[in-house]
């Protein structure tokens, strides 16, 4: 991870320099108001959390802080940040448009998206265009949800698309064509990326998103979308090349993307540590560390970190479904029950809460109930990452392979980096003896987690079923190289070698197998 290393020099200076922290604080404060103005509330929330997670000296929380919050213009004159002028340009619009914007934003906040769109119909400033198209997009999503009806019903899925997407793309492309490339609004670029990803054009989304974060780095949503575009770890350096690596937001992005791609490497932990010294009480970073541990199968460490987060911020439901997964894997029924109670006392109707409860039922082998809760989670948010995969698992338990396959498929539709879903699909097709299908999915899973021997065992198994012993041997050998002397693999290898007539090798593996058995 060269890029990470290159980021390190910047990192050293970050920790000590208090003026840098002050600058960052001002930037984040400004980002918060810019993001809220644009109704990007999730990103705004993240920014505010980051702001409160900063390591600020007590003296800094003094008078001028209040001034800054009271008067935005003061904020602007204070910041000597080079992009500053650009940032204020973002908000420029005429008086009449400003009034319309206020109205539209009020409508948006009251969830009247079509109205918001209508009021901004003829406005030309980028900010207005953004809000108009954004509310159009949200409205389309809402209608899509409504039309999809029941989870896994006949109308659920790709056959019910968001009808506004193509229109928004068309309008945005028109806008980008008609304005100077240098003057492109970062938020419009962001929206373009979002819509393209929704429209399954991830490849095309990359470029506008990179430009968006370069123009305005404090839009966390853009970084998340950019992370969604990265489907393998090999792509990450290519993207980092295009953006200023030393920037604090780039580091956040690096950590999150690596975490999502299961890269529990030392370099990632090092970057994360740097960020943690800068943001000592930013729970988000702790969760990232916990997730990295989880991927590295260090469940205890991960559990501790989650406990820590919960003790500081007990009502934080974000990512708590991941915590419940850990408790599920480690079979801690009581703790999982506690977490479920805590979550449902905070908000019963959050997808995360439903997932936690579903996990609890699953652990108690009440799979029907678990399915009910997963369905509820998905009704609340069809893009809920874990729920689709976990529901697939439940359906496998219930021997409903069709539904399981469909669930896994949807999981991949939401997040193509979900190894469990790919692997689950492979297993499901193996059950119904469609080995070509099963092979394909195992292959994808193996591409995402090439160092996991389970994937290669599964692939070897498929080759075996497809009457390709030579390839099967290769796959098993690969699996063997990634694990300790697993007796079952050795046994397979022995019998496969026997079947292709290589008696000597067969004997050797059978010998190894015996040794492995003896050891354990």
């Amino acid at each position, binding site marked *: 991870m060269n890029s990470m290393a290159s980021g390190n020099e910047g990192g050293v200076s970050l920790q000590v320099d208090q003026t840098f922290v002050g600058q960052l604080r001002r930037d984040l404060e400004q980002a918060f108001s810019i993001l809220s103005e644009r109704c990007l509330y999730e990103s705004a929330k993240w920014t505010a959390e980051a702001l409160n997670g900063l390591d600020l000296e007590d003296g800094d929380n003094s008078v001028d802080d209040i001034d800054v919050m009271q008067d935005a213009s003061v904020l602007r004159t204070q910041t000597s940040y080079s992009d500053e002028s650009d940032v204020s340009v973002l908000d420029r619009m005429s008086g009449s448009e400003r009034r319309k914007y206020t109205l539209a934003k009020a409508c948006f906040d009251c969830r009247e998206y079509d109205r918001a769109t209508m009021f901004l119909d003829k406005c030309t400033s980028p900010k207005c265009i953004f809000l108009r198209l954004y509310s159009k997009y949200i409205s389309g999503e809402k209608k899509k949800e409504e039309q999809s009806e029941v989870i896994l019903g006949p109308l659920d*899925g790709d*056959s019910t698309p968001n009808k506004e997407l*193509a229109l928004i793309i068309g309008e945005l492309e028109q806008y980008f064509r008609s304005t100077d490339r240098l003057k492109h609004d970062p938020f419009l670029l962001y929206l373009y990326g979002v819509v393209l990803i929704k429209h*399954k054009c991830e*490849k095309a989304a990359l470029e506008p998103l990179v430009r968006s974060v370069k123009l305005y780095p404090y839009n966390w949503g853009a970084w998340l979308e950019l992370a969604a575009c990265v489907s393998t770890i090999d792509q990450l350096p290519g993207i980092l090349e295009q953006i200023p690596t030393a920037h604090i937001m780039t580091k956040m992005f690096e950590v999150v993307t690596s975490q999502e791609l299961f890269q529990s490497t030392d370099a990632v932990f090092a970057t994360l540590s740097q960020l943690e010294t800068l943001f000592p009480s930013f729970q988000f970073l702790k969760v990232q560390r916990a997730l990295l541990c989880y991927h590295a199968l260090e469940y205890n460490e991960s559990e501790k970190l989650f406990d820590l987060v919960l003790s500081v911020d007990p009502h934080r439901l974000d990512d708590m479904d991941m915590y419940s997964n850990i408790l599920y894997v480690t079979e801690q029924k009581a703790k999982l029950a506690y977490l479920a109670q805590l979550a449902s006392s905070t908000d019963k109707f959050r997808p995360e809460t439903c997932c936690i409860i579903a996990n609890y039922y699953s652990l108690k082998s009440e799979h029907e109930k678990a399915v009910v809760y997963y369905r509820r989670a998905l009704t609340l948010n069809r893009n809920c990452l874990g729920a689709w995969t976990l529901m697939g698992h439940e359906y496998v338990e219930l021997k409903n392979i069709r539904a399981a396959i469909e669930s896994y498929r949807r999981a991949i539709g939401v997040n193509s980096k979900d190894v469990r879903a790919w692997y689950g699909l492979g297993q499901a097709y193996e059950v119904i003896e469609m080995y*070509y299908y099963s092979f*394909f999915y195992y292959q994808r899973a193996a591409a995402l987690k090439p160092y996991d021997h389970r994937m290669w065992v599964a692939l070897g198994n*498929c080759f075996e079923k497809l009457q390709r012993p030579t390839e099967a041997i290769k796959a098993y050998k690969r699996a063997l190289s990634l694990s300790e002397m697993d007796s079952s693999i050795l046994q397979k290898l022995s019998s496969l070698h026997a079947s292709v007539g290589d008696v000597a090798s067969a004997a050797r593996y059978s010998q190894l197998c015996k040794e492995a058995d003896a050891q354990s």
Partner: protein
Amino acid sequence: MSSRRSSQPFSTPLPTSRSGAQLRPESNSEFVLTSSASLPDAPALTSARSASPAPAGLSHNSSILSISPIARAIQIPSTPQSLSATPLVPTTNNVYPFGFGSDMEATSTPVLNSSGPPSGLQEPDALCQADRLRLWRHDALMQHQYQTAVFIGDTVLSITDDPNDAFWLAQVHYNTGHYARARQLLMRQDLDRSASCRYLAALCLTRLSKWDEALSVIGESNPFQNEDDSYATSDGGIKLEASMCYLRGIIYSNQNNFEKAKDCYKEALTVDIKCYEAFDELITNSLMTPVEEWDFLSSLRFDDTEDGELVKLLYTTKLNKYYNTNRFFEAEKHLQTKYNLEANSDLIQSRAELLFVQCRFRQCLELCEKVLERDQFKFSIIPLYLACLHELEKKNKLFLIAHEMAENHPEEPVTWLTVGVYYLSIHKIAEARRFFSKASMMNPHFGAAWIGFAHTFAVEGEHEQAVSAYSTAARLFQGTHLPSLFLGMQHLQLHNFTLAEEYLDASYSICKTDPLLLNEMGVVLYHKNQLNEALEFFFKALKVADELDSDTKAWVPIKINLGHAFRQLRRWPEALEHFEEVLRVSKHEPEVYSAMGLVNLQLGRTDQAVINFQEALSLAPNDPVSWDLLKRALEENVNSMASKNAG
């Protein structure tokens, strides 16, 4: 001729003059317009004018209705004479020049002889009883009190037995809708030596659908064609010759003799460009091909005055939108700035038509709604409005307008077209067909209805019946390329490539700049495996779409076809490029994914191909071809992995 004209006003008594204005029954509303027009030969009318205010004061002292020309004159005292005199003029100039013999003047000006000419010049008190009754009759007619008009008209006719009064009574009957009665009256009075009477008689007969008889009354061809008709009517009225030509056209077209009808309409316009009815028939029924239309317009003689320019610009905006868009813009701009017609609904409609051709349905809809806001039942724009609503799947609005139309205008064919379109858009094909057929029965020359009727068959896959319905449409609308285009498309679906090509070629000979047509032609070539030629057509289609500045919806199918053609030509990267662009800008179609899958399979990217096929299947789960391809891709995937391992 000029001598005739100048002589008549003197001898025209008042009642006639007012009735004369009514000679154009279809243009009652223009009455107001004409009255304000300037009079080139005003001096000659002085005597008549001096008399006119007086009877007005006499007979209309209680009337404040502005439809009465004389009352209007009184309201503007500064120029009472010229204004009140105006209605007189069109009569004299229009009607009298047409005669069929030496006695023309006598017969064709019905009032002239019998009712003492000088009466108009007398003081109001001196009006004879007959004249007073005539005024009464006229006023009743103006106020649509037809019973009175018939009653008094009959009375005055009995008193005077004047052919002029008979003619005028016939007008009343015509207005009441009693066409046979009017016709009978005209027959009885043996009035058909006068051109205007013959015109009215023929009009009655067409109303009665007695086409042959009407034609024999009006004559099979224009008897004036050799006359020097270079003069313009001085008063802004329409020459009766032109109206007669137009009527002849109507008769021919009802006899399904479209060639002759077209010639008649064109002749009407050549005689007098003001005969808008003829122009409208030509344009709305697409009797001419797009090129012909433009040529014809430039061949027309518009006078050099400002009015001539205005009319020319107005007509320019009405022409088809496949050619010369820059000329349209020019005309539009001119009309907006110079003539202040920015808010004119016809001009907006023309702009909307252009937008429709460009497939910019949203903007088109906006304009249509703007027009309909002011004039809710502007029938001429409704087919366009319906097409937009259908295109944008605004079923609810279709429902509303269909109901409003059916409630308020059940007698209009376009109403039933609306209902049909509504049913078509909610996929109730049988009902849609019923209403389209109803509309086309009410007006057998209603192109939109015929095409809608044919579409219902096409939607249900009843290609044979669709073909026959489109053929009817093609026969009715020879100037538009659409029916033959649709015919070609039907044959394409039936895999009759030769026939399809013939029809498309025919369509192409009419219009060379419709992207849809060029696309279809490319498809035929594609099926005939002439891929490079197909490519050429697709590119041409794209270019045209680009020139028309069309919306994405117009060019997405073309791009898909381009992708297919490139795929067949094994130019994989180009094929992929086009497919990807299509996926980006449009709604996802399973076929595009399958095609991409095929390309990726060919390129050895089996994993990508599998994903493509799965996308296709998630959109269309019952497509056996995609399933088969997916299976093949998966097998290929294992093989490629195996060979990679081996290598």
